[in-house]
């Protein structure tokens, strides 16, 4: 596995799941349209920062009743949610919509993440490059710079000496 492929694999792993929508995973129990609408609306009782799905106060109960009534009348989920927005404003939604200025809320963290990821890949590649002759010698990449490192075996030392001699003699 080359370094670049490994880096790409890491990036891919690190960004697992950015693509599919994750909101259904939060509550495995959000199966019915009623429950899904409840999770999309905040309870405005003022006693807590909870969704209608989780709040146990009387206000949440009355909102739940209204959702059930509207669904019973044949309204779609979107119509029910729209009716609540019309009455209480956008604040009743538990998450910003994915349109207009609100899209910034969703996109900014992802853009920042990928920009930072690209910057890291760039830095790592730069830091991975040998720096000048000294670095080259450390990596054993240059036969001309500096004395041979002490860790070489006797055999390697002889070989290296021969190569240097050949280079000097112009072979």
């Amino acid at each position, binding site marked *: *596995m080359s*370094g670049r492929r*490994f*880096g790409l694999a*890491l990036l891919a*792993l*690190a*960004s*697992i*799941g*950015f693509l*599919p*929508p*994750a*909101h259904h*995973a*939060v*509550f*495995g*129990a959000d199966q019915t349209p009623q429950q899904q609408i409840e*999770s*999309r609306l*905040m309870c405005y009782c003022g006693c*807590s*920062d*909870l*969704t209608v799905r*989780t*709040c*146990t106060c*009387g206000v949440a*109960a009355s909102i739940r009743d209204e959702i059930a009534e509207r669904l019973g009348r044949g309204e779609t989920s979107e119509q029910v949610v729209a009716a609540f927005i019309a009455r209480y*404003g*956008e*604040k*009743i*939604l*538990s*998450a*910003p919509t994915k349109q207009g*200025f*609100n899209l*910034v*809320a*969703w996109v*900014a*963290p992802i853009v*920042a*993440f990928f920009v*930072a*990821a690209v910057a*890291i890949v760039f*830095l*790592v*590649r*730069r*830091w*991975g490059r040998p*720096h000048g002759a000294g*670095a080259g010698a450390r990596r054993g990449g240059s036969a001309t710079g500096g004395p041979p490192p002490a860790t070489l075996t006797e055999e390697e030392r002889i070989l290296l000496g021969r190569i240097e001699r050949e280079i000097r003699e112009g072979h």
Partner: protein
Amino acid sequence: MADFGTLCLLIALTTCGWAILASCNGWRVQSGTLVLSAERAIHVTWALVTLGVISLEYCIHANQFDLEYVASYSNRTLPWLYKVAALWAGQSGSILFWLFILASYAALIVLLNRRRNRTLMPIVVTTLAAVELFFLLLVNFMTRPFVRLAVPPVDGGGMNPQLQNPFMAIHPPCLYLGYVGLTVPFAFAIAALVTGRLDNTWFRTTRRFTITSWFILGTGILLGGWWAYVELGWGGYWAWDPVENASLIPWLTCTAFLHSVMIEERKKMLRVWNLALVIMSFELAILGTFITRSGIISSVHSFTKSEVGPLFAGFLGISVLISVALLLHRLPLLRSEHRLDSFVSRESTFLFNNLLLVGAAFAVLWGTLFPILSEAVRGVKITVGPPFFNEMMIPITFGLVTLAGICPVIAWRRATPRKLLEKIQIPFWSLVGAAAALLIAGVRDVYALVSFSLCAFVIVTTVMEFVWGTRARQKVTGEAPGPAFWGLVDRNKRRYGGFVVHLAVMMILIGITGSSAFKQDATASLRRGESFSLGPYTMRFEAMTSREDPNFDFQGARLAVSRDGRAVGTLLPGQNFYKTRGQETSTEVAIRHSLREDLYLILISFDPQEGRVTLKAYLNPLINWIWIGGAMLILGSWLAMLPDLRDRRRDAEARLRDAA
């Protein structure tokens, strides 16, 4: 006593001011006497602030309702423990408490560094005292805890019933200890930048403090979750509300620092980044306090009405400016040779770990602050709630968990792909095996499948680290497995403490996944003798019971509970009706705990005329693994904090050098 407290806080202001002047000047003119005087002033300030705290506690316990604070947050029947906790129940008290913790940390730091880090200490003292001074200005002039009422009431209003829970009594101190603790690494970072002593000393000294603050903050967050779970009565433990987010954000940046500091230690790289992380964690802790104290999230307009909001914003702005200016000024000194031997190395996985952790902190911060931005730009109030944070955090968490699985098996500097593949084989097949087993068991939720399988991957990788290490030690020393294991852990507590923390986080993740993906709930309205079911449980309503306490009246519904037809006991969900505070109520949930799941019952309402109760039941699978993981997190952090043999040797060498 109130006047005494006021006086103490006023004198503390002057001693703290003196500490700043003396230590700063002492450093400038290299006067040991001045520096010593400043350090003594820190101790005196601590004593005075402590006396201030004792005065307020005395007033609370002596029911001095002529004080506005005591009248607002205590009453005659409030139990002793909650009277102690009343100190942090309101704004002015909690700022005084914050100041007390900071003063205690400062005094401790001065005490521990009497003979160590002498070049850094004057600036450390200046920085700590400067932060202290800000809070002293607040308690003396803005949020004064000893304000008297013109007409004192006969009895106080009492504490908010939801705060009357033993966990609430320890959760805020834990959070504060964590938050305020971040000031210490910050002070050392500033001192290193000011003095130009940017060698390894500052982070070695502060690493232990950072781990301490990190783990106390983490414990505070978990205790907050537990409190929400048992007291708030909505069946969950985390609602992504701004106050919770404010505590999570610095914890995430702190976690990033604890990882990236290892690269600095080994390779002298990322020095600017590590300093930036320490500074960021402190600023985010202040930002968190600002968010929770200014009311800015509920509305931009409440910010201007808030007494402390603009002051916090000012303090935050100034401290960020100074830190950034110092960092830029010292940039030439901080330049280090950045070299990575290979992309396939532990260093690079740590870089991605930092990316994810800081990315997570940014996403949470962004989501928390976005309502302000929206109101400012569009004039429309919006809510950024659980769906947003879940959608952001689930992928980031998966990425982090994957790295936690890969990282331990990748060597420092350069990992050979062959060796890596060899080492990762067993964990990888455990991942595949776990996924297959879950599929066969009928798990179809994609996120639960990914989460559990990744947890299996990390757990196996981590456990194998222990196994390999023990085997290697056995070969070298010829010890039996038990002693070899203890010897291994004892010699490298940081490494294996870190692994225990990783295992703990996996436990927590298993708990979070189980309790969110497979949560079930049911609501029922019952008469005596009627029953309702949820999952394998059946609950039969037997009778209403009541109990009187000096502070409140309790009304509860007794339910006989059976699991798969077998009786497992009775549960008593109820409500407390507080005698003061206008009959305010609090929900008293009843929970049947087990490792497999919790049955969680809430009494929503009862109608005495009809003899009918309305109940909500939740089934929270695997939730207790969160708290087990929490206990393990504490254990692992302790292990990592204990001094290693290597550390002890290094300390001894440093002492010898200093003596020479």
